[in-house]
Each structure stands twice: as structure tokens, then as C-alpha cells.
């Protein structure tokens, strides 16, 4: 799939004030002098407590809400000068409740914006199928179904596909994964990040969940009550250097732990263990391995089978799979340190084995290496 490439978005001293009457009507929060520059192709997360104006800010980009003062520019053009319907058809829009049209099939839903733009029917259909495949749904299976016949996670994916249909350079996502359970949310987040690496669309993403903000954002804008920007920074900077007490409290006392979720195993300091092959004699291995009687047993393909305690075996015995203790966790290099840490703690071992994409042994991630990372935040490269 091709992409038009991302658009830059700039908020220039944007404010939105509401009268007393509108506030009573449950309108979204006010915004106070917001200035942000979002580079093309990045995911910018707006995060903050409810009523902080994050949804208001988002809706001022596609003019569902007009600012009281200030300007929003997309690719250096003031959106106030663009006809709202024209503007909106160029911007993808995903909301928490998805808002799929219940009376239209999935294919028709996905083709909404292309149809508004007047694409020929055959091209709209082809595009729908292409997008459904892109988001991991089988077009044959879902094309002619109605939204009510899909699961929550599938509907959310269709919502994303619909927003992508006309290849918008900019996407607005308002708590897009807020209505699904945590396991599905995690998967949708990962899928979306993968998709974004391919498409490089600019994304403005609203959430109230700081963990989601840290995970999804290239940059995170923390808004506080009253619609004031508290900090606009990459996630790692937010965690290492919160701009004020509000941000520090909002990111949480466990921000050291959260920082771990920004680092992958491949970036941590790995150690190396003595290894042995299946079929080797215990005596030979013991002679080769240093003082430590624990060696890592590898199978024919070089994949770890588990740890072996040589002291418990006779020197003339040949090593086999049954000698290995497989309880140590295995990480791929993409695993986040936070997940690695919880697995290590859960399995009550001092280290896990790191493998490459083919499953081959790479090194050992020790608990001490993870805690070292916790102690020394300055060594963390910004994500």
C-alpha cells in the first residue's frame, strides 16, 4: 500500500472557552493557549485526566469544534480556511465507540470516505478488501457482514480500516482502544504500531491512560485540568524528567518501572553463559565450563532447551533433553524489559534466555541487568 506520507500539525495559541450554559450541558473540557508542533509521520498522544481538553483539542483539528482563539494548521494551512466536509474527508477519524454504521455491511462501512469522494464503485470495493486484509480480517468472511456480527476487537479494527480508507495524511484517534478488554487492547495497540511503521501517517491519539500514552506515543502531550499543556516530550523524557508535580503524579510513582516498558531486551546488557550441546559428555563440558556448574543446554538447531546442573550428573553421561530444566523464561529481542522483569519475577529465576528470530541462543538477561536499568535512568536512550 502506498501512503501520501504524514502531514504536520501545529496548534498556535489555541484556546477554547465555554460559557456556563454549555458547561452544564456536559461539553468537553476547555483548552487554554495550547501550542504544539507535531512533526509529520509521528504519533502524538494527548493524555490527561477527564475534562483536560484533550478531546476538544482533537476535534478542533477537523473542525468538529471551532477554537475560541488561535489557529490549527495542517501542513501549514489554517484549517479554518478549509470547507469542513472537505477537510474531514482528508483526515482519518476513529472514536472510542467506533461509530460503525449498523445498517451497512463492513465493506460499505470501510468504503465510506472513498464513496464520499466519488471513487468508482469497483475501486471502493477493491480498496475495502485491501484494507480489511491490511488490518488482519479476511475480506471473504467479513465483507458482507453487519457490524453487529463482529466481535468488539474486530469492530475496532474495522473502525481503523475505515479511517485509513482514503489514505489520509493525518489520523485523529479518540481513545480508539478504550472500549475493549485489556488483552485485546494490547493486541490492537501492537497491530496499530506495526501498521503505523508501514504507513507513516501522522496520528493524534487521545487517551487518559498514561501507560497507553507511553507505549503509543513518539511524543506525549500531558494536559492538566483547565486545558493547560503541562509537558510535551518523548515518553522517556516524560518519565526521567517530569516538568512539574502534576506530570510526576500523573505518570505515577512507578515511573521507573514504566521506563522499563520503553526498553527492549536487545538494548539491555546481556551476559553469556557456558553452553553445551546435546550428546556431549558431562566431563568434557565440565572441563570447559568455569567454576559455575550450571550450563545452558542447546539443541541441534542452537535453540535453548534449559539449564543443566553438571554437579548432579556423572562425568561419563551424555547430555540429553531430559537433563535440562526448562523453567527459565525465554525472551525474543523485541520483548520489553518491563514484561521481561515480570516474567523473571514470576518464574523466580535469576535470568532468562534471549533468542533471535530463528529461536537461536543469543545471551542471558539477568535480573541484575534489569534492576541496573531501574537505578540508572540516565543511561536510557530516548525511545
Amino acid at each position, binding site marked *: 500500500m502506498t501512503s501520501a506520507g504524514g502531514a504536520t500539525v501545529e496548534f498556535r495559541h489555541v484556546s477554547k472557552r465555554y460559557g456556563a450554559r454549555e458547561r452544564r450541558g456536559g461539553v468537553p473540557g476547555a483548552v487554554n493557549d495550547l501550542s504544539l508542533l507535531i512533526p509529520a509521520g509521528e504519533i502524538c498522544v494527548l493524555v490527561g485526566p477527564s475534562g483536560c481538553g484533550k478531546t476538544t483539542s482533537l476535534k478542533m483539528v477537523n473542525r468538529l469544534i471551532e477554537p475560541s482563539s488561535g489557529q490549527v494548521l495542517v501542513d501549514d494551512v489554517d484549517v479554518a480556511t478549509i470547507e469542513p*466536509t472537505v*477537510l*474531514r474527508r482528508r483526515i482519518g477519524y476513529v472514536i472510542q465507540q*467506533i461509530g*460503525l454504521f449498523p*445498517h451497512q455491511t463492513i465493506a460499505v462501512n470501510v468504503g*465510506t470516505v472513498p464513496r*464520499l469522494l466519488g471513487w468508482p464503485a469497483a475501486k471502493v470495493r477493491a480498496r475495502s478488501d485491501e484494507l480489511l486484509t491490511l488490518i488482519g480480517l479476511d475480506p471473504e468472511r467479513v465483507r458482507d457482514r453487519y457490524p453487529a*456480527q463482529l466481535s468488539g476487537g474486530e469492530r475496532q479494527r474495522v473502525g481503523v480500516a475505515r479511517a485509513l480508507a482514503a489514505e489520509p495524511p493525518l489520523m485523529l484517534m479518540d481513545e480508539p482502544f478504550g472500549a475493549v478488554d485489556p488483552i485485546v487492547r494490547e493486541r490492537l495497540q501492537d497491530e496499530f504500531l506495526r501498521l503505523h511503521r508501514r504507513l507513516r501517517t501522522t496520528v493524534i491519539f487521545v487517551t487518559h491512560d498514561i501507560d497507553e500514552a507511553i507505549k503509543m506515543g513518539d511524543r506525549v502531550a500531558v494536559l492538566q485540568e483547565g486545558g493547560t499543556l503541562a509537558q510535551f516530550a518523548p515518553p522517556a523524557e516524560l518519565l526521567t524528567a517530569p516538568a512539574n508535580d502534576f506530570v510526576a503524579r500523573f505518570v505515577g510513582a512507578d515511573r521507573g518501572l514504566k521506563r522499563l516498558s520503553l526498553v527492549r531486551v536487545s538494548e539491555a546488557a546481556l551476559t553469556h553463559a557456558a553452553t553445551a550441546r546435546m550428546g556431549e559428555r558431562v566431563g568434557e563440558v565440565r572441563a570447559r565450563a568455569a567454576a559455575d556448574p550450571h550450563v545452558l543446554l542447546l539443541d541441534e538447531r542452537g535453540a535453548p532447551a534449559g539449564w543443566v546442573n553438571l554437579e548432579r550428573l556423572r562425568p561419563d553421561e551424555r547430555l540429553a533433553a531430559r537433563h535440562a530444566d526448562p523453567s527459565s523464561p525465554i525472551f525474543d529481542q523485541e520483548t520489553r524489559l518491563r514484561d521481561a522483569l515480570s516474567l523473571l519475577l514470576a518464574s523466580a529465576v535469576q535470568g532468562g534466555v534471549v533468542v533471535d528470530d530463528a529461536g537461536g541462543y543469543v545471551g542471558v538477561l539477568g535480573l541484575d541487568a534489569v534492576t541496573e536499568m531501574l537505578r540508572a535512568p540516565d543511561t536510557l536512550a530516548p525511545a
Partner: protein
Amino acid sequence: MTPGEPLIRWDWVQSHLPDIAQRIGEHLLLAGIAVGVGFALSFVASLFIARRPWLYPPVSWVFGVLYTIPSLALFSLLIPFTGLSILTAEIGLVSYTLLILIRNIVGGLRGVPAEVRDAALGMGYTQRQLLFRVELPLALAVIVAGIRVAAVTTIGLTTVTALIGQGGLGFFILEGILFFFSTPLIVGAVLSVVLAILVDGALVAVERRATPWARLGRS
């Protein structure tokens, strides 16, 4: 009713078949025009109300007042102006459909989920596209429910228009009352009920066909 006379004389029915068919036709026409005109008026009023919600209370008050006027009283009030004409009959019949129809049209439109509207506008639907492609299709089930009630009520009420000389199945009922003859009275009443049931069933079928998404559960 003369003693010894059977409740229904089938020979009368047999000899009046063409007559009966003609009255059924008249009845359907009278009721059909009433529901059609009533729907058109309510629909236009609902579109105004969709954009200017403050119009709803006064409009539904007016329609409500019309609804409460007894039909006989309304006809007698109208006769000095419009005579014993089909217009008099229709003014009365239409008046009684308005309240039912506008409640269902406005209610149906207001029942469209806010997020669906938000998504439609956010993707660049114009107000008109939103109304015709999203709001009305989604309101269809509720609107058809209103048409069903209006149609059934109107078919029953149309029997009264025989009093101002407008024919329909009410003609037989009136005949039965005037001549103490139960057969036409029963024929008129039963056929009126049967018509109402058939029309209601037909509307259910139309609604089912037009809203295939509405009966789908989560798979």
C-alpha cells in the same frame, strides 16, 4: 334486528360481492390518502424539528390537541366550511395520524446513537447526507412502527366517514344500524378489522425487508 332472523345472511353477502369489493376499495383509498398525507406533513415537520429542536414541544402540542377532538365533533365543525366532501373526511383522518407519526419520526431520528452521528460528521458527511444515508435508515424501524399504528387506527376510524357520505366499509355498518339488519353491520365491521390486520402484516413485511441488519444478533 328481527327475531328469528339469522345473525348473518350469506345470500345477502353473495348478492352484494361487487358492492363489498367497491367499499373495500373506497375504504383503502380513504385510509391510504390519510396516512400518506399525514406522513408527508409529519415528515416535513420532523425535518424542521431535527434542525430546530425547540419546535418540537409546540408542534406536538398542536398535534396533540387535534388528536383529542372527537371525530364526530370535528366533522360537524368542518361541514359548514368543506361540506359533506372527501376533503372533510380527510382533514379529520389526517389530523389523527399526525401525533402518532411525528412522535415516531422524531423519536426514531433522536434514537440514532450519538457516536454514529459523530463518526459520520467526522468523516465528512454533510448534514443532508447524514440525514438521508444514516439517520433515516436507522430510524426506519421506529418510523414504520408509527406508520403501522397510524394505519391500523385510521382504517378503524375511516368507518366513521360513512356518516358524512364518504362510503367505505362504514357504509355497511351504517346500513345495518339504520335498517336493524345485522348482516351488513357484521360484514363491515369484520372486513374493517381484517383490512387493518392485513395492512399491519404487510407493513411488518416491508420493514423486515428494509432493515436486514436489525434482526442480527452477535454471532
